[in-house]
């Protein structure tokens, strides 16, 4: 019984009570994903499961058999930061940094959701094929990630800059 974490195969726990978050932090020694509330209310534990953002605190590790998990440790590394990580540095997208791994994983998946055309609570036209990532969309789509330090303005700027660039590159490539 295995799962893959950041490209590396890992064993699932024998005890089904172990959450994905505890497996990552306690057994695999990947402390990037954080335990804020342990009840689904803060988003600090957000990781990618087969590319989609989920809460690892409410996921039982045994439910991830055969699946692929990406944590912040798999997004970038010192000296080889992901552009979004670099943008968080440049825009002061954090103070204490506790919410940051969750914010970054969440934002990466959010960008995919926007590309896929997934509507949000603030999307005007549900049948529109493309959705523009503006500030309102971004704030709504990131509302599952709380920041107790109130670094939201920097977070919004960092995400907007990163994915506005990507949109331009995508358009240029077409």
């Amino acid at each position, binding site marked *: 019984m295995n799962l893959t974490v950041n490209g590396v195969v890992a064993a699932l726990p024998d*005890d*089904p*009570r172990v*959450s994905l978050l505890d497996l990552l932090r306690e057994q695999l020694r990947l402390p990037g994903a954080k335990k804020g509330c*342990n*009840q*689904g209310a803060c*988003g600090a534990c*957000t990781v990618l499961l087969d590319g*989609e*953002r*989920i*809460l690892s605190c*409410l*996921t*039982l590790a*045994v*439910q991830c058999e055969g699946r692929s998990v990406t944590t912040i440790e798999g997004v970038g590394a010192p000296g080889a930061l992901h552009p979004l990580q670099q943008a968080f540095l440049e825009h002061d997208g954090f103070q204490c940094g506790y919410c940051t791994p969750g914010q970054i994983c*969440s934002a990466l*998946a*959010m960008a995919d*959701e926007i590309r*896929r*055309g*997934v*509507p*949000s*609570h603030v*999307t005007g036209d*549900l*049948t529109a094929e493309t959705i523009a990532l503006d500030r309102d969309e971004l*704030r*709504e*789509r990131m*509302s*599952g*990630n709380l920041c107790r330090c109130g670094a939201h303005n920097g977070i919004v700027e960092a995400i907007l800059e990163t994915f506005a660039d990507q949109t331009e590159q995508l358009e240029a490539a077409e």
Partner: protein
Amino acid sequence: MNPFVYNRAADAADAVRRAAALNAKYLGGGTNLVDLMRETIERPPALVDVTGLSREIAQTPDGGLMIGAATRNTALAEHPLVRERYPLLTRAIVAGASPQIRNMATVGGNLLQRTRCVYFYDDDGARCNKRRPGEGCDAIGGFNRMHAVLGASDACIAVHPSDMCVALAALEAVVHLEGPAGARSLPLTDFHRLPGDRPDLETELAPGELITAVELPPAAVAARSAYRKVRDRASYAFALVSVAAALELEGGLVKDVRLAFGGLAHKPWRAWKAEAALRGNAASADAFAAAADAELADARPRSGNAFKVELARRTLVAVLTDLAGAVA
């Protein structure tokens, strides 16, 4: 969390068999059940994971949709046919929880999520008839700002917290079940129960019964529809009041209308009386207000939630006014 045995079901029949043999609870996305197990409010000896069951969204011969119970909330909200034909359902889903939770949560689990009453969650500190029938209810006379004003009892004033189910009630969805005694189906509006003197019994689901699918009948009325949620913050909060509404006009008269409230009752509250007051009548501001009054006449607020009655009235009138304007 109490120890439990984990099983994964291959299909519906396998799930029912395993659950009966192990006295298990079914596990969807776990967003509610794992939390309640961690709080030891739920203590199942076994879990049967049903996330591998059907997550197909298929058109039915009559032009409706059949939605597998393991469909994730995001997948349902983003489906092109749902966005086009049942926009209030997409709106209701994306008004709930957070993107991460919607990626995990299943349709079956959403129907069966339990109340967010804070006393229900406080196993050590509070009395709760839902947790231990007969013990008393600390919400009555306590902090009950979020609680019910319609259909409650002196045993329990909790509300059903789902947004999605409010839209499903308006859409006359049908819940398909499979259990040890065979398959059956129930209208969603009959699926959840009012608390009465047994608030621990929340639905008509028999022990071991599995939700296999939710069916949406065709609903021309839903082409013009809306879901409005009023909450304490702009996002990621449960409803104080919500309204699912669909309106079809013909020559200034209400040809068809569907209305349901969230946040007011122990179940998604289909507003039959308000609908009856409107059908065939002029679509005017006065008529909308009269319809709201007809539905809310029976409201019984508690110490902390009298505001909900007026809030529900105004929200309903506002949504109908918007929809009528959009049609005109």
